[in-house]
């Protein structure tokens, strides 16, 4: 550990995502956090209702979703062509294009650019992809401070914390916690919060503004992600709410944008579909406050040195999976997590990834591979209720992909030798293979039912699996006579 070397930025919490416990255990801990559950319930239910109003008021919403789905499918089918087309267009517009196979390569490229600019700090626009590659820590190690400028990301960074939602990263904090974080931390890293800071949102925003302004005006390099790249024109698009993004995109001399290779759209016209789908699905707004589109360098205006890092980091692997590839359509709107009843109760941290909720449960294990305990548990972190499928603006069949990945987990776990679970399910498979097998088992259930005739429900059963059900839920006693037997008796009588 580097505990003795003073840090340039607030240290994130110890541990890595991959070292996190599997979902069921992480979820159990999260369920006990009352503040988290209260905030989550409030935020998700509010935004859920607003989103459906904003979707329903668009007459051709379903057509828009289909268009979004089809455009993104086209991008997937011809990704090689569109990438080269985009590279050419961006290069012609004066952007330096870099290709990064994985997180290490991307981080190396960014560190090199920053070093060439002789800078000790960069400002950042909120971006999922730079969290995915853990850029901030790579920069820290290279002696460069990375400052998050999105308000919620700032709260997370100053709080030595991790984001728990794509859109509302500090959803797990309340305002008095935010005040404490600002009071204790801001002064250590820049302009301090006023002594008499209250927990009124306008006051908190004011403190953040003063703290960030100093950094905006000083920084020579900015890093962003990107919501879309138009292959035809080489234009980059960023959609945001606070305007901090606009500051990062226009003030520093150098701008580095890290963009996943799936973020392309073929033509400028295609943007129209997504600029309608995205704000309505994410913040439930008709139009988001700031949409920045830039096509290369404009002499004398804005950053004069533009870089784009096109990142794979597992995406081509996802594209190779005919079922899983549909997840690459994702435009990171967060509608699926806002509507998810599991997410509503456990929040983002339990998913052990920068991508939480339903999309995280499919995308994370596909990007990282089904190796760690947490990645193997993610496809099972869903009741398959399907609420996510219905709201997804690009119609990703999340439930089907979850089931597909469950099958992959099972095949991987049982590749060498059977597990306890696979033995049980092998038995279930046998029972359900033939009507008479099931009839046989029902005999035993009937005997149990007969033995417990006086009861209608059973309480806690101290056996594995059974206790998982019966610790909090009673279970009905099986009836003495199965339907099958009743039917046979009735047929007999009828004859």
């Amino acid at each position, binding site marked *: 550990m580097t505990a003795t070397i003073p840090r340039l930025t607030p240290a994130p919490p110890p541990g890595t995502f991959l070292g996190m416990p599997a979902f069921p255990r992480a979820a159990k801990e999260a369920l006990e956090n009352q503040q988290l559950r209260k905030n989550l319930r409030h935020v998700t239910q509010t935004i859920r209702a607003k989103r459906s109003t904003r979707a329903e008021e668009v007459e051709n919403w379903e057509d828009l979703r289909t268009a979004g789905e089809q455009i993104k499918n086209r991008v997937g089918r011809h990704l090689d062509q569109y990438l080269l087309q985009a590279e050419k267009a961006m290069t012609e517009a004066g952007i330096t294009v870099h290709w990064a196979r994985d997180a290490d390569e991307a981080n190396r490229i960014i560190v090199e650019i920053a070093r060439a600019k002789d800078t000790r700090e960069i400002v950042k626009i909120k971006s999922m992809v730079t969290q995915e590659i853990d850029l901030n820590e790579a920069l820290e190690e290279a002696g460069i401070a990375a400052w998050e400028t999105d308000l919620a990301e700032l709260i997370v960074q100053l709080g030595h914390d991790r984001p728990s939602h794509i859109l509302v990263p500090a959803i797990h904090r309340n305002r008095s916690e935010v005040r404490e974080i600002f009071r204790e931390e801001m002064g250590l890293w820049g302009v301090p919060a006023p002594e008499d800071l209250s927990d009124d949102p306008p006051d908190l925003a004011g403190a953040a503004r003063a703290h960030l302004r100093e950094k905006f005006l000083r920084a020579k390099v900015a890093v962003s992600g990107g919501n879309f790249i138009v292959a035809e024109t080489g234009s980059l698009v960023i959609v945001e709410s606070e305007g901090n993004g606009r500051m990062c995109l226009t003030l520093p001399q150098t701008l580095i944008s890290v963009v996943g290779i799936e973020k392309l759209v073929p033509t400028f016209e295609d943007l129209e579909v997504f600029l309608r789908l995205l704000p309505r699905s994410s913040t439930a707004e008709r139009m988001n406050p700031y949409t920045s589109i830039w096509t290369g360098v404009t002499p004398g205006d804005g950053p004069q040195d533009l870089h784009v890092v096109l990142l794979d980091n597992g995406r081509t692997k996802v594209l190779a999976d005919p079922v899983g590839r549909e997840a690459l359509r994702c435009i990171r709107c967060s509608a699926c997590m806002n509507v998810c009843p599991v997410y509503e109760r456990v929040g983002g941290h339990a998913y052990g990834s920068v991508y939480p909720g339903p999309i995280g449960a499919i995308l994370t294990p596909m990007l990282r591979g089904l190796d760690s305990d947490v990645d193997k548990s993610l496809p099972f972190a869903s009741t398959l209720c399907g609420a996510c499928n219905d709201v997804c603006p690009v119609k990703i069949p999340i439930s089907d992909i979850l089931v597909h990945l469950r099958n992959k987990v099972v095949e991987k776990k049982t590749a060498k030798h059977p597990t306890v679970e696979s033995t049980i399910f092998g038995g*279930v498979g046998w029972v*359900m293979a033939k009507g008479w097998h099931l009839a046989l088992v029902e005999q035993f259930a009937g005997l149990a039912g007969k033995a417990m005739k006086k009861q209608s429900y059973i309480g806690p059963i101290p056996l594995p699996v059974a206790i998982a059900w019966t610790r909090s*839920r009673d279970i009905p006693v099986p009836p003495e006579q*199965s339907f099958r037997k009743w039917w046979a008796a009735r047929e007999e009588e009828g004859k």
Partner: protein
Amino acid sequence: MAPGTGKRVALFATCINDTMFPSTPKAVVAVLERLGCSVEFPTDQTCCGQMLTNTGYFKQALPTVKTYVKAFEQYDYIVGPSGSCVGAVRHQHPMLARHAGDEGLAKASEDVITRTYDFTEFLVDVLGVTDVGAYFPHRVTYHPTCHSVRVAKVGDRPMRLLEAVRGIDLRPLPYSDQCCGFGGTFSVKNPDVSVAMGADKAHHVMETGAEYLVTGDNACLMHIGGLLHRMNAGIRTIHLAEILAHTDAEVPA
């Protein structure tokens, strides 16, 4: 003439009803026969296989696809009292066959699923009835189960059937679109989250003041009912078919 006259219907009881809740398929038989259908129960049938499929055991689930096709292929109407099981047959069986590389089975399955109906679909769409002559003088709240709504897509059919029941006092369920947290093996793989969701559902059910919680899926009812029973909530769970089966002659105790 009764609307079901001349209609030969194969009952897909589903394994959980067959084993644990036989009163539900019995109720289906009662309603269908009352409406004039002739009901058969092909004894080769087992299960939709979704417990296996949804836990990732595709290979082990494949025999249920074959068994389903074999048991039901000769019928024009296959009716099951479970949006979840009917949904699984329609949505997953061809996928399972293709996953195993059995295109012949996939085709056979695609054919038989076009004739597979949830009980409420069969009543409303095929027989064209919403009033099935039921009488149920109780306070009832209806939870539209996720798979019945989002996979089988039964829509408002269950509600229309319930609204036509004489004597019923239907109470709207708050947050009815929220999953109850059962989720098949999710209920034991993630018991804490499952119970947290189920507890919220149980509380919403209690808020309605209903005596009965009704759904079209006994699996979800087993979960919510198990919680309600542990809480001594005094609310009973009942399958929709059983309400529809009740007539003036047989009022439940």
